[in-house]
């Protein structure tokens, strides 16, 4: 035989998936929400923010890898995905340079300093957001109303926090107004519409087997249960579970950020613990913490607990179950 054959260890077939394909799926899943977000907040400015966040991520990843003499990996789409998630976590009316800087911070501080994709302990997009939030609190809390595009710093969560902090209860006019949150009647909020866009995206990812149901279900479920308990105890002080679910970044966090492969547990049981931790921390931070919104912090906190969770949830190996039959 003249022909040289390939020799390799089994298996000789592959399911066909690649990391890049999965990243692309995540980006597709985010598209409905991205389009809705750009359209609702005035097209031009949010579009620029989105574009520059992505550009910041991709450019800094390429530049870092070039300097370090590593293979350039921006083709795998993970940097672009980080950029999109970062933009969705910023006010759509952010200044352009903030989007760019956030992208750089997300990739450099959140990912590359740890060794690049697969080695970062924290979700890069949330690191980018946190850097921006600490650095530019004024700009990061100046939101825009959907459709009317009126500039405000009042997100529904901060309104509630403020009112409860001052008077110990949610005033009635605010209580009534909170209903409109579902239709995007508040700063930075798209309400139910984006909730469904994210839900659809999340379902697509589960269908494509990019993510499993464990984290979203336990995240949303635990947030729902905990907020319902508080609401039943004192509905004048604690807002309703529906309000919690459709405000802030809960849906985005549950489907797209708490499900980040790299920074979350690998065992199904660990995923359930992770999601539940995120949900509980989110509600606790929202109700009792210093910040009005807790999704980002709860995910980052649970990210840091991931190695411990993984260690504690090593599955019971086959052959240890007591005999039956």
């Amino acid at each position: 035989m003249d022909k040289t054959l390939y020799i390799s260890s089994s298996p000789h077939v592959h399911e066909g998936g690649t990391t890049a394909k999965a990243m692309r799926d995540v980006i597709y899943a985010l598209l409905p929400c991205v389009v809705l977000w750009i359209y609702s907040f005035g097209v031009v400015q949010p579009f620029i923010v989105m574009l520059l966040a992505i550009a910041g991520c991709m450019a800094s990843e390429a530049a870092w890898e070039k300097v370090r003499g590593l293979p350039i990996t921006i083709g795998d789409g993970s940097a672009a995905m980080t950029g999109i998630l970062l933009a969705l976590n910023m006010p759509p009316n952010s200044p352009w340079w903030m989007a760019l800087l956030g992208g750089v911070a997300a990739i450099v501080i959140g990912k590359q300093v740890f060794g690049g994709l697969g080695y970062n302990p924290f979700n890069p997009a949330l690191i980018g957001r946190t850097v921006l939030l600490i650095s530019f609190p004024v700009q990061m809390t100046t939101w825009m109303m959907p459709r009317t595009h009126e500039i405000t710093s009042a997100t529904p969560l901060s309104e509630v926090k403020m009112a409860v902090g001052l008077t110990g209860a949610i005033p009635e006019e605010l209580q009534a107004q909170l209903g409109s949150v579902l239709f995007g009647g508040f700063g930075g909020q798209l309400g139910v519409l984006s909730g469904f866009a994210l839900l659809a995206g999340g379902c697509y990812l589960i269908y494509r087997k990019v993510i499993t149901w464990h984290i979203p279900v336990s995240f949303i479920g635990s947030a729902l249960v905990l907020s319902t308990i508080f609401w039943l105890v004192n509905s004048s002080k604690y807002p309703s579970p529906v309000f919690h679910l459709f405000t802030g970044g809960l849906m985005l966090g549950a489907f797209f950020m708490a499900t980040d492969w790299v920074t979350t547990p690998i065992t199904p049981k660990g995923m359930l613990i992770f999601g539940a931790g995120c949900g509980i921390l989110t509600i606790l931070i929202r109700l009792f913490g210093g910040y009005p919104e807790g999704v980002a912090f709860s995910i980052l906190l649970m990210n840091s607990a991931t190695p411990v969770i993984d260690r504690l949830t090593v599955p019971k190996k086959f052959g240890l179950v007591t005999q039956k039959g």
Partner: protein
Amino acid sequence: MELKTFKGGLHPPDNKAWSEKKAIEVCPLAEGDELVVLLSQHIGAPAEACVKKGDTVKKGQLIATPKGFVSVPIHAPTSGEVVAVEPRLGTAGTRVPAVVIKADGQDAWDDSLAGADPDTLTPQEIKDRIRDAGIVGMGGATFPTHVKLSPPEDKKIDYLILNGVECEPYLTADHRLMIEEPENIIEGILIIKKVLGVEKAIIGIEANKPDAIDLMTKACAGRGIEVGALKVQYPQGAEKQLIYALTGREVPSGGLPMDCGCVVQNVGTAAAINDAVRRGIPLIERIATVSGSAVAEPKNLRIKIGQPLSKLVEYCGGVKGDLGKVIQGGPMMGMAAVSLDIPATRGTSGVLLFSEGQVLKEPEGPCVRCGNCVRACPAFILPTEIAFRTRKGLIDEAEKLNAMDCIECGSCTYICPARIPLIQSLRQAKGAIIAKRRKV
């Protein structure tokens, strides 16, 4: 009917349609063809040649004797002249001892072979016949069958499990055997039942072979053999997973099937046992599927042990297109062959010819901790964590993470989006752990 299955695993496209409707054909042997019979075709000590160059042998004549308990004899697959007793190229690409026979075209049987009625034999006599016929596990693992049929006195065997799962993609040899020779299999099963003294026997067949399920169910009716339909899921045919699916029992970690009262035999092995006991025919032939995108006409063949793979392929119309890889066995667990010139062995359940385009060349990326391997692993271990530690040389930690429980099914590597050859690291870890245990 609810299909039984195990936990974990995955479902690769089975690609069986290419050959599952093809009746078994005999791969012809012409005068002058050389058969290279390797002396190490089974797990355990290699056999020792008992013929020399220039000897004339008859079909079925003993040409190599076993060395030790876990070893089997080897027989001449046809009549002819021994032209060489020397190392020849084996599957792994290394030269291994072999007896080369030049066929005389007569295919004349050795006269001394004689069948017997199993009813008149004691279990020990049956076992001796099985060993003397050189029967090994026909699923591909080639473990000497008489060893498996000799559980220690204190192990009570409740179930005989027959493996007709054939969960490997492409392969249809067992499927065809079940359809074409159900009686041969069933009689073999009855013999094994007698040897082991068990009441219950179950044949496990995957649901993608409905014709085989139907046929076997009908044929087994009233003969003390059940047929269990199984969900199509890889690795359904792995011993431990098959036992779990059919009986709900788990083989204890580090133990053997007999530790939970089961013995597993391949359906092909059952047929071979029947041939050996009833007719005195040693293991010199087997059924193999020749398939894959780079073969002209996929077929199921009855081949002689020692025929070069090239002959098999030639009979199937030769290579089609751009050949990239040759696999002996299935695509999930089979071995890549260095060339088509190597001989078929007792473990050759299939010969798969992959085109250049089917060869996996995607470079390895960093682990992104997606957890796919964890969910796919039927042994419930953490492949990526073990592989990571093995690569860092942390063998003790790999051992603590149950690396030894890996059954090397390849599911983790099949599903890994980062294309990390996890199973190689797992094999490395197992090797290192065994070496370490020996040292202690």
